[in-house]
């Protein structure tokens, strides 16, 4: 039999041990689980292929090329004057994801986009859809305009503009 005055001391000790054991155990489980979760993220070799250069000199006005960057298609389009004009004159209030054209390009002639529909990741088709010089996604019917902005359909956002910079007049570096 325990004596009464010992009881509360024993109880405090026991509570402390319970809390301490649980805390150390939780940290231990977390430390054991994290590598198992994190191994699924892109590995070093994938991250190493992060940037590429694209030569623009052969692209004529109105033409578009597709390059593969990080496993995704990137559209590089040399827009016509009409397409630029159409993209610039749009009233931002009409847009689902409002963004002026000049925020989406570095030189208004060149439009660089990740060619992945922001809905569920299909590759939109160039020159199709209801907006001249734009894109149409065949999977679920999203229409993008000549600035790659979402105009109609289920996609929530504009086509992403990747990080890129001009490294000379006729060359860009992606990533």
């Amino acid at each position, binding site marked *: 039999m325990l004596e009464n005055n010992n009881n509360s001391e024993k109880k405090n000790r026991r509570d402390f041990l319970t809390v301490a054991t649980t805390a150390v155990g939780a940290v231990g489980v977390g430390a054991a689980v994290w590598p198992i979760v994190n191994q699924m993220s892109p590995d070093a070799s*994938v991250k190493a292929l992060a940037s590429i250069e694209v030569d623009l000199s052969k692209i004529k006005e109105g033409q578009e090329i597709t390059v593969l960057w990080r*496993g995704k298609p990137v559209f590089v389009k040399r827009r016509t004057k009409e397409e630029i004009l159409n993209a610039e004159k749009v009233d931002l209030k009409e847009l689902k994801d409002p963004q002026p054209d000049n925020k989406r390009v570095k030189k208004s002639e060149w439009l660089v986009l990740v060619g992945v529909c922001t809905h569920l*990741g299909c590759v939109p088709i160039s020159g199709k859809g209801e907006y001249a010089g734009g894109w149409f996604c065949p999977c*679920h019917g999203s229409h993008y305009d000549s600035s790659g902005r979402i105009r109609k359909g*289920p996609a929530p956002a504009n086509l992403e503009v990747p990080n890129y910079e001009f490294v000379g007049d006729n060359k860009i570096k992606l990533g």
Partner: protein
Amino acid sequence: MSDKNLENTSAEYKPVHTNKVGGSPFKGVVGWIDNRLPIFRMFKYEYLDFQVPKNLSYLWSLGGILMICLIFLIVTGLVLGMHYKPSSSEAFESVEKIMRDVNFGWLIRYMHMNFASFFFIAVYIHIFRGLYYGSYKEPRQLMWLIGIVIFFLMMATAFLGYTLPWGQMSYWGATVITNLFSAVPFVGESIVTWLWGDYAVGDATLNRFYVLHWLIAFGILGIVIFHVIALHIVGSNNPSGIEPKDTRDTVSFAPFTTSKDLFAMLIFLFAFVIITMYAPNYLGHPDNYIPADPLVTPAHIVPEWYFLPFYAILRSIPDKLMGVIAMVSSIAILGLLPWLDLSKIRSSVFRPIWKQFVFLFVLDFFILMYVGGMPAEGIYLLIGRVGTAYWFLFFLIIAPLVSLIEKPLPMPNSIHEFEQWKKQGKIKTFKLF
């Protein structure tokens, strides 16, 4: 002295047995094993002596048929796995090698492909059976819920498996479905990158999908065991929806139900063999024989036929996040049915109004399936929206409302009386064949 102490205190303790050896109804070697590992008596009690309602129709054979499908899928999958290579540069070729070079590879792969489809055919009939005869009601709610979990896992496994041949539909199907997770606010994009192990569906994705395809397949097997254990506790429902009362209402599972099930399996496997031998690719999509190309999306992406109704629901909602939520809830909502349908009567045979809505629900399923395979525009979009609306109305409004206002038909007191009424033409029942 110590002996005396023991004697005095032993009255305070209860006897204890840390083993339960014994109790087998069998003799000899079988009895010796059964005394130590009660598998033989379990089989005897749960299958040979097991009593089931005597009026089970062929719709009650689907459970056994599903079990056969699962076993065949695991066996054919196991041998396919001995030849398949889960890498983005080799997967497509290794599947072609299976089709052309491996002994009977074509047969094994076509069986695996078509058993997946037939698994879904059987599960849809199985779910319909539960819906029509109220098998989700007290006391079978948990079985119903376990069944929905199995259905979700089946869909996951089927999706992962469809990715493996690494054809165009594999690749773009995987892209579209994994992108569903990008609808999650804030962390969506990170989740998708984590799932892929890359910035697009790629080699890392394929490799892990292969492993998960196996894992979840065996997960299904495990949960199916729970489903069956629960069945043996709550017992089978039957077309009358009335619980058996005495031996006039039941038969032994073996040989009566087993022979009926075997006949149903024969018919089912006959249909399976016809499709597998004469039209093995009928239920698939020809584009999946084009190797995956991350730069070109097929003009018209369609999932496998068994996903079409839910795909139609996804596409009928113009908002990305809401579309994904609607698609997931269209299946999860089945789990609420036991608490939304307030009627105590199980069988639709006695529920003239509810019965009409159930048939309309089946029609809705097929309409959505049709719409899911069509382009998401114009009239198809409209039909898809009406179909989606009915799908949710059926559960959320119609089920509780009908159960409150409906006047059920007069009911017999027992299963044997139900059978008598049927013979007298007082009851019209639904017959599969």
